[in-house]
């Protein structure tokens, strides 16, 4: 048993938002899913205030050691989610963390307030990778923008609030510091890196229906390591580390850098039980080499 933001968890592996749908998985695997649930907590896909159908297909492109997705955050919207999904997710054998996003600060407040009232929900994850329709800035890419958002949202958060940072920014450490100073309870990173692919059959045209997409998987692991380390060195908040984790060794690397929890995303597409395997491998490694509370690594030159 470990504790994260006051939530008791069986182990340190959770799913990355949007990479595991417990409701669909139950349709495919039945109750076997519950008997051997791979994650210590379940993180929902991003929920927005209004329903979203998502981007037109194709939504996937495969990379060397990874993929690009332009799913476009399909979801039922707050009302539909509260009505249809939350009750079913309440049946899960592990704590539920609901991931929310809005392009207006008021929207985020409404989402956070609504989920804070529900007992099924143990914590909230705030996806700040979208632009603020008013300022045009990506909410999570600019420390001031994030601070302003948190100042209006935090008072309405009745549950621990995890800020899901975007890697598409100049200084993740500055953003994390803003999150810490303005009342976030934890940060999670990395989200996907903006990327695109060309259509092999139509020269000059993008492959993805959404034009651009987000890069994930082992291909981004090196970038995740440095952003997680940079953030860990700056803030004392609990950190959920993710980005290309495929093995207990990868998870242990993040633990060594100071991540409290490790999220598994793309690897679950290759095996729905990957989270369980990684948790077991990590447990074995933590037994062999206990992870350091603080990272052992010194400050480094920023020039390459």
């Amino acid at each position, binding site marked *: 048993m470990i504790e994260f933001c006051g939530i008791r968890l069986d182990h340190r592996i959770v799913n990355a938002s*949007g*990479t*595991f*749908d417990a*409701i*669909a*998985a139950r*349709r*495919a*695997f*039945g109750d*076997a*899913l519950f*008997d*051997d649930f791979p994650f210590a907590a379940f993180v929902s*896909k991003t929920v927005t205030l209004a*329903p*979203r*159908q*998502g981007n*037109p*297909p*194709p*939504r*996937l492109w*495969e*990379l*060397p*050691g*990874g*993929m690009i*997705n332009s*799913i476009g955050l*399909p*979801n*039922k*919207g707050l009302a*539909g989610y509260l009505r*249809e*999904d939350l009750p079913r997710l309440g049946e899960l054998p592990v704590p539920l963390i609901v991931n929310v996003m809005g392009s207006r600060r008021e929207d985020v407040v409404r989402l956070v307030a609504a989920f804070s009232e529900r007992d099924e929900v143990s914590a909230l994850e705030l996806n700040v990778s979208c632009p603020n329709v008013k300022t045009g800035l990506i909410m999570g890419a600019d420390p001031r923008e994030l601070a302003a958002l948190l100042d209006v949202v935090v008072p309405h958060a009745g549950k621990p609030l995890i800020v899901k940072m975007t890697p598409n920014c100049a200084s993740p450490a500055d953003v994390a510091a803003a999150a810490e100073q303005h009342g976030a309870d934890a940060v999670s990173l990395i989200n996907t890196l903006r990327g695109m692919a060309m259509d092999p059959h139509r020269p000059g045209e993008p492959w993805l229906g959404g034009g651009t997409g987000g890069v994930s*998987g082992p291909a981004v692991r090196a970038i995740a390591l440095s952003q997680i380390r940079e953030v860990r060195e700056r803030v004392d908040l609990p950190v959920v580390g993710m980005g290309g984790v495929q093995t207990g060794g990868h998870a242990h690397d993040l633990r060594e850098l100071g991540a409290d929890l490790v999220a598994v995303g*793309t690897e*679950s*597409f*290759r*095996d*729905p*039980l990957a989270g*369980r395997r990684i948790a077991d491998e990590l447990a074995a490694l933590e037994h062999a080499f206990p992870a350091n509370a603080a990272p052992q690594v010194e400050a480094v030159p920023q020039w390459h």
Partner: protein
Amino acid sequence: MNTSIEGGSEVAGAAEYRIPVLSSPTRTLAPFGRRLTQLKLRREYGPYRVITVDDPDGPRPDPGQFYMLTAAERWGGGEDERPFLPRAFSVLRAHDDGTLDFLLEDVGPGTNRLCELEPGDGLHLLGPLGQGFTPPRENRRPILVGGGVGIAPLAIWADRIGAAALTLLGFRDAVHAEGAALIPGARIATDDGSQGYRGLVTDLLNAELGCDPRAEIYACGPGPMLEAVATIANELGIPAQLAMESGMACGYGACFGCVVETRDGYVRLCVDGPVIEAAAL
């Protein structure tokens, strides 16, 4: 609209009859987690390859269901350093000795790597997944329509519904038509006339429906063929169950990457399909 994104029973909506793929009681569940297994046998049928894979612990799949396959070694390092994700394949046949047959066409790094596998080589298998075919509605005779590698799910379906089934298969040419040997008694059309009827398999279908429209169509094949079948079926108000394809990352509803557009919005083909009613499109 948006509600259809989670799939589930809402989708049927205005359709003349409920979409069985979404409401059908019979969906064989997959064991949770991928299984490491072995290739037992491989055979060629013209340009196609049939691989027989051990699956002692898996359940018997429904016709039309599919599996996600990954070679246990060297999955990666092919063209463009791919593949990385598993690949989806309809089950061609399931045998009593607990083996499964799959029909492969080498079109890229994933199928290429799987076609390389030799007896004894390891592969990972997840499934059976998705929603398969459902029996014809009363007093409708089943007509199976397949194109190219798309004949795969029709073979196991033909086995299941038996003699009743009339099977029409289309291929590019006689070489590709060697695949037809997988469904004995099928009528064949080839684009170049090098075997059977010269023309499109949908011509054969039209002829059949001309004689007697009280049929239910089961189709699998290239996009344009499925569209043609759907148009024919919808115009005549004949039910057609289409086993469709789309790019998939996970195969079990996790990534939302495999959506196809239906009149009710996007549905995930891996959990709400791969068999979709033409009337829903």
